[in-house]
């Protein structure tokens, strides 16, 4: 026993620094397995949330039916059994005490009592990431030309083994030295062969020939010892070849009307829509650029913070915003490398002239450049008859598969409209 003291080693290992989330695999499996149920619960949960909470994780409750892992158990309503329980205060042999209705839950083994909670519902907490992943699961940027090769391609450099020449930057020192060693071994071997042959010849040769051979051998020996350490043929470089690759770079332009006619309710709805859009893009396409443009009678490009939070009022002109968007596309996102998306939200108040011009501008100038133009109309709720808004009417003129519009009247519309606009479609 005492010899164990001798072999004590450092027995406390700090594992806190180990990568976290070993359980993530199982977590993911659980979510995958009960995706349908969880999604339904998440959608419900989502509709209850306020805008600031949308992106947060949250508690989800799903029905516990499918979750049970059944094991064979006795039916406690059959047969007879005895069991021992603690805490007797007043009973004597022969006494009776009422049997609880759910017999079995109250006695016996502790584990089984615990299992019961899963029966009717199962509650757990989803992280922000998991929450969003579920929301945006079957949504996709429409018409993203990722798959149509040939048309929108760009070159991407790819690694392809090694080459003998290249930039010093991509030299592979280890491999180069390895090649050099190999070369020297090979050369030494052939020199050794020559020396051996000469030595054999020397045995039989005459005196003058022998001197000649000695000289040769000496020369070869020197050469053998002075083989260059590194020659050009040893060098190896990383080979990089350009490959055509489909462009999946995308930019989303968000246009929002913040004029006086957009009251708080409408702005709130528009913002909700854009927050959703923003979360969706951020999650689904890490590399998507987002441009925020808000407009009254002038348009300006702002950052995310000001787009969502900075109050402003004024009249309404739609066209300048479209023109600004167009300028942004031309200067920064032109060319075939980019998939361009535009989402516009407005209450649809505009002069008929402005509306006409805007529609024409969208149709003639913008649509050829963009993959998808989504317009979200937020009509006044005060009107007591449902007249389509001015801009909506103007946009009637546009007929293009890359254009879509929906009307949002209340909070509950946002999510369905969003889904409709961005639901995954079969590539046309």
């Amino acid at each position: 026993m005492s010899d164990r003291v001798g072999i004590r080693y450092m027995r406390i290992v700090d594992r806190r620094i180990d990568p976290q989330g070993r359980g993530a695999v199982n977590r993911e499996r659980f979510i995958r397995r009960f995706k349908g149920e969880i999604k339904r619960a998440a959608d419900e949960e989502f509709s209850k949330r306020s805008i600031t909470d949308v992106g947060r994780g949250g508690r989800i409750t799903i029905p516990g039916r499918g979750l049970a892992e059944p094991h064979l158990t006795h039916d406690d309503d059959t047969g007879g059994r005895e069991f021992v329980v603690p805490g007797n205060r007043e009973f004597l042999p022969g006494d009776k005490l009422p049997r609880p209705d759910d017999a079995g839950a109250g006695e016996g083994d502790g584990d089984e009592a615990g299992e019961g909670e899963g029966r009717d519902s199962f509650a757990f907490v989803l992280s922000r990431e998991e929450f969003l992943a579920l929301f945006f699961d079957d949504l996709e940027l429409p018409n993203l030309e990722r798959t149509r090769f040939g048309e929108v391609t760009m070159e991407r450099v790819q690694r392809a083994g090694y080459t003998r020449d290249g930039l010093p930057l991509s030299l592979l020192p280890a491999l180069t030295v390895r090649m050099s060693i190999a070369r020297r071994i090979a050369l030494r071997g052939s020199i050794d062969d020559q020396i051996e042959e000469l030595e054999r010849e020397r045995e039989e040769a005459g005196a003058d020939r022998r001197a000649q051979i000695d000289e040769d051998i000496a020369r070869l020996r020197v050469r053998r010892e002075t083989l260059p350490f590194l020659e050009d043929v040893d060098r190896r470089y990383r080979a990089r070849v350009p490959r055509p690759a489909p462009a999946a770079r995308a930019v989303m332009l968000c246009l929002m009307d913040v004029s006086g006619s957009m009251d708080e309710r409408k702005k709130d709805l528009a913002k909700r829509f854009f927050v959703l859009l923003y979360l969706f893009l951020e999650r689904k396409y890490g590399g998507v650029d987002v441009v925020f443009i808000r407009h009254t009678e002038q348009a300006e490009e702002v950052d995310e913070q000001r787009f969502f939070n900075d109050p402003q009022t004024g009249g309404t002109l739609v066209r300048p915003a479209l023109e600004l968007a167009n300028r942004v596309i031309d200067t920064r996102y032109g060319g075939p490398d980019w998939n361009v998306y535009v989402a516009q939200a407005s209450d649809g108040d505009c002069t008929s002239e402005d509306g006409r011009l805007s529609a024409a501008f969208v149709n003639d100038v913008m649509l050829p450049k963009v993959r998808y133009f989504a317009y979200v109309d937020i009509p006044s709720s005060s009107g007591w008859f449902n007249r389509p808004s001015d801009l909506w009417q103007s946009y009637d003129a546009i007929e293009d598969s890359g254009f879509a519009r929906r009307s949002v009247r209340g909070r509950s519309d946002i999510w369905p409209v969003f889904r409709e606009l961005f639901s995954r479609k079969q590539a046309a």
Partner: protein
Amino acid sequence: MSDALEPTRERERERPWPKLLARPSVPMPRPGVPRAAEPIARGSEWTLSTLEKFDVALLRHAQRLGLDTFPTQYELITADQMIDLCSTVGMPVHYAHWSFGKQLLSQERGYRKGLSGLAYEIVINTDPSLAYLMETNTLALQVLVMAHAGYGHNAFFKSNYLFRQFTQPDAILDYLKFARGFVQECEERYGWPEVEKILDSCHALAAYGVDRYRRPSRLSPRRERERLRERLRFAEQHYKPDFAHLDAPAPSGEEIPAIFEPQENLLYFIEKSAPKLAAWQRELVRIVRKVAQYFYPQRLTKVANEGAATFWHYTLLHELYDAGEVDDGFMLEWLANHSDVVAQPAFDSRGFRGINPYALGFAIYRDIRRVCEQPTDEDRQCFPQLAGTPWNEAIYFAMANFKDDSLIEQYLSPKVIRDLRLFLLHDGEDDRRHYHVQAIHNEDGYVKLRQALAAQYRLEYHTPSIVVARAGDDNERALLLQHRVERGRLLETDTTEAVLKFVKELWKFDVVLEEIDPEGNRLKIHRT
């Protein structure tokens, strides 16, 4: 041994103990008496070096008392890591499955909302034994966990006959690593829904995947891997669709033997004889079976194992105190946790969740020590072999040679029965609205209670005994299972049907379960 303990007997003090509480059998040192040493550390903060000092002190006391343990490796982890660990039944590696994810999510939620604390300790029966210390524990708790897991459980694993016989502590982690890799590979090859189907089915039958009486063959991940690779390679290389039926293994012995021996290891039987499972599916069955086999002794020794660990942390920490290596604050802190752990709520209180294995086990072991040290006349009558013998010898014997039911049957003393105020209830067909009290803690009741409680911890009490009675004659290929009904206790219909569906998933043909009473009468039939 007895020299060290002799003087403490004089130090016992008379205290007005509350009526229901037993007087502590481990003598308390008198306050104010100069201590042998300075405390190793004060306060609740800890560092790695203080923990190591405590470990050295614990080891010294444990060795003085003759406790034999595997070396322990303590791993310091965060609360999140603890949740992860708990979700995979405490194993640091395990194959991936959604049920572990379910565990994880529910535990995490409970913990975040403060509904439940985390396990203080997890210890794994490996060599060296792995014990986990959570970083949020205070010093006193860390030392408590070290004594409980690193010495108590560890010694139990090393000495108990079931663990010695049924588990290979040095091989389990490697085997689980192999299992994880294999499951992953299967998922890649055959798709996760297929793999999950098999694993779900096996999990439902895990309790019937163990050899109860035979020592299982040694786990060796390397050998498993080779065997498997060979099997799969052969199948792939030699697969010719036209001749596939010729390659199928010929029915062993050409014909089914006239007498089919009933088999208790359902998963083993399925692995070997299910007619339509692919090689990789059999392998998955095997993995679940092997893991279940590893945990089998733990299922049998809940009370014995937890009781021993609790007894040892209690004893070792008191040794530390008697040596002056910890101060009063330290003692008060861990004693508070200790008393939570060994609390036994009465049957009619809200917190009642059955008999607490910690409480029962601790009471039994502590009573063994009491009987050895301070036997009463009653004890001399009940335990003549214990009274007056060295207590640690008696404890080691109890740890090494018993499982739950036999431990209770051997050692449950009248005093423990009285302290826990155990009583025996009968629930019979004659009166479904009442439980009948059959025995209480009196002279007539002790033996009855002891036997009934022991029976309650027998495996058959909770896990109905099922055997494979007949399988696959040529015409029907139906699998016939039998439930040996005891005292008229039938199987629950709903769960049985659900489980049979899982069996069918593996067997692929009809499965029938009959319930047979001891006279051989068929009481009920479940079919898929």
